[in-house]
């Protein structure tokens, strides 16, 4: 007993001393050949929490694409390294993660949710660190802008969904307006989505019968009451700004009770087909890929590239198990990788140091992106202030286990309804 206590004491002392030792130890840095530059990409996302099905695939996609750049020698003399941090979809872990990544000497940080980049923003501005996010908010892209995103404001994405509803609703045949509502998580993404949807629907009172937003806390399992409410409102279309697990719970509830409304989701919700299949056995009524102007315009080619890269760098069992190919987040990972590629390429061709975050940011605001015809050129600078304004929408369907996008509504200028 006595010895055991001593042993425990010893272990504890060691644990206390360890941070000091670690502080003294030098961060392990791969020593590249003298001509090689190493770009360290920090990846901060949820890898084990509520949206991990998205985060994991995204991370794999990013890593695969960076490997692909290297193997194909698309940027000679540059090596890529990815350092990851798992924030468990918990905002209180983001700040620690940001510092951790900074300590690892990253040149830019790739992240996903709005709250992640928003939390990092003040520190990123102070440290002059470039952040690439997936979706964004107005606060996030206010001056000085250090956070750049692939997606429009969540507000606009949700508005564009309802725009699609107005375009496709048969007013003559039904003789009435479509009844629409939202169901959202009670977090920044959900609130922003609700704001956009409400503003849009209320600007078109003769075209849409807007019922309101139902807010549920993240982590809600039980959708019995919200589903009942939606049914009592008599909704035709319900847009869900939640990740797909909770949305499938809503679907289960809806199907079990025979409610009639259609649940559609875009943004985050459509990310994990594999999960969706495992969970519900049925697809969500409508999955929409809302794309910003200039991005993913040729979705099919993008998906083909994804297929090639995924099969090249992952074992068949992993692809099967984690469902990368059925997971659109894998593609987002690739797109993040492309963004990194564009920035670094641009910096090098301008004769600047690509390991400098400020240089990369400069590229992000100025540069025309031209990934060899795969993606048509766009500028990031127009994201400043209001986010990407022009959106188009695809409907996603699984064809032989591979998601196929079909363009269903063309450019929609979201700035118009705001006036």
């Amino acid at each position: 007993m006595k010895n055991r206590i001593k042993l425990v004491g010893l272990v504890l002392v060691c644990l206390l001393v360890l941070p000091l030792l670690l502080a003294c130890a030098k961060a392990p840095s791969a020593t590249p050949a003298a001509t090689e530059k190493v770009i360290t990409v920090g990846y901060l996302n949820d890898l084990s929490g509520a949206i991990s099905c998205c985060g994991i695939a995204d991370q794999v996609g990013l890593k695969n694409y960076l490997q692909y750049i290297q193997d194909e020698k698309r940027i000679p003399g540059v090596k890529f390294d990815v350092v990851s941090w798992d924030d468990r979809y918990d905002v209180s872990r983001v700040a620690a993660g940001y510092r951790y990544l900074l300590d690892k000497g990253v040149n830019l940080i790739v992240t996903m949710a709005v709250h992640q980049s928003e939390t990092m923003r003040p520190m990123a501005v102070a440290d002059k660190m470039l952040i690439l996010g997936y979706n964004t908010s107005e606060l996030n892209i206010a001056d000085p802008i250090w956070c750049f995103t692939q997606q429009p404001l969540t507000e606009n994405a949700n508005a564009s969904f309802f725009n699609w509803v107005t375009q496709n609703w048969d007013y003559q045949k039904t003789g009435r307006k479509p009844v629409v509502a939202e169901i959202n998580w009670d977090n920044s993404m959900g609130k922003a989505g609700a704001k956009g949807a409400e503003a849009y629907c209320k600007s078109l009172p003769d075209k849409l019968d807007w019922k309101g937003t139902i807010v549920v806390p993240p982590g809600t399992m039980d959708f019995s009451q919200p589903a009942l409410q939606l049914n009592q409102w008599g909704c035709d279309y319900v847009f869900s700004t939640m990740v797909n697990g909770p949305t499938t719970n809503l679907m289960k509830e809806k199907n079990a009770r025979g409610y009639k409304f259609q649940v559609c989701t875009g943004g985050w919700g459509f990310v994990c087909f594999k999960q969706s299949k495992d969970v519900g056995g049925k697809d969500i009524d409508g999955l929409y890929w809302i794309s910003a102007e200039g991005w993913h315009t040729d979705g099919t080619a993008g998906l083909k590239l994804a297929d090639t890269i995924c099969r090249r760098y992952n074992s068949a069992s992993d692809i099967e198990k984690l469902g990368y190919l059925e997971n659109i987040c894998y593609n987002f990972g690739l797109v993040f990788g492309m963004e990194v590629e564009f920035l670094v390429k641009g910096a090098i061709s301008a004769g600047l140091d690509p390991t400098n975050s400020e240089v990369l940011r400069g590229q992000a605001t100025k540069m025309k992106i031209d990934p060899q015809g795969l993606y048509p050129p766009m500028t990031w600078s127009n994201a400043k202030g209001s986010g990407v304004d022009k959106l188009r929408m695809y409907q996603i369907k699984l064809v032989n286990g591979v998601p196929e996008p079909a363009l269903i509504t063309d450019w929609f200028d979201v700035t118009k309804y705001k006036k």
Partner: protein
Amino acid sequence: MAMIPGDFSQSYERDIAIFRTKTQWVVMVIGLAIMLTFPLFMSNYWLSLFNFIFVTVIAVLGLHLVTGLCGQISLGQSALMCVGAYTVGVLSVKFGISVWACLPLAGLVTGLIGMIFGAPALRVKEFYLAMSTLAAQFIIVWVVSHLEEWTGGQLGMYVPPATIGGFSSASPSNLFYIGFILTIVMIAVAKNIQRTRVGRAFIAIRDNDIAAEVMGINLFRYKLLAFFIGCFFAGIAGWMWAMYLQNINPSQFTLKESLWMLGMVIVGGMGSTTGAVMGAVFVRGLDMIADYASAWAGTVFPTIGEQAFTAFSLIIFGLVIVIFLIYEPRGLYHRWELFKASYRLHPYAY
């Protein structure tokens, strides 16, 4: 405070002092001076980790006063930090009050809110009281996220940094100085409260509330006071948190964080100020070690995947608490005292 052999206190003033000998003073002053030089050579990562630890230490000290001394289990410390952080945010952004002036205000407002949730202590004890503080955790965060006109709701709000002249808390090194001074002051305050009249009344209530009442301590008033002081500390921690992140969001203040803080009090040793500080530093340190261990393991076993390391950090944290509760229920502080005693008495065992 343990005695040095052959050294006897010759006055009561000296007997009740925290540092009774010159050597202790010198050691402390040198220690603090060394800490003050950290910003000169440390990377932002370490400074920021220290700032995070400062926030935790202050909040845990508050919890130590409520739970460790007064024995009232509180499961809402993190939500009360939220009150402190939003007090700064709302007062400075909406009313233009200087961020420095918000420091005591954050403490006061949080203290008063804390008293509201401590009020059930009049009738409710133990688990039931713990649960009413748990209610505080949920209700406060909900209210904050729904007062959208003031707080920006779930979208969060930016808080301006504290500035004097060219000195701004936005940089981690400047915040380090602020946090450092704040933490030292708060530790001293906690320690002083503990060793004077009010602190003894708290411990009396914890150890034997019946006897305390019969010996002239108004239970309700002192329980409320404990909540006020504990939540005052939480408010100060909230201020520091707002300065640390500059972007506050209701989802930053989780039940899990509250529970962790309780865990820190336990690991440090219930009822000791030093223990509370040690617990906070130890657990945050452990967390960080788990991060680094994860990263290291990631390079060695790349097949596991990063989430496995989150799992390990949870398991390690859980195991450490389990080990502490079983083998060292009196916490790190007790271990430290034993170590000091054996060092002093070396080479004799007794």
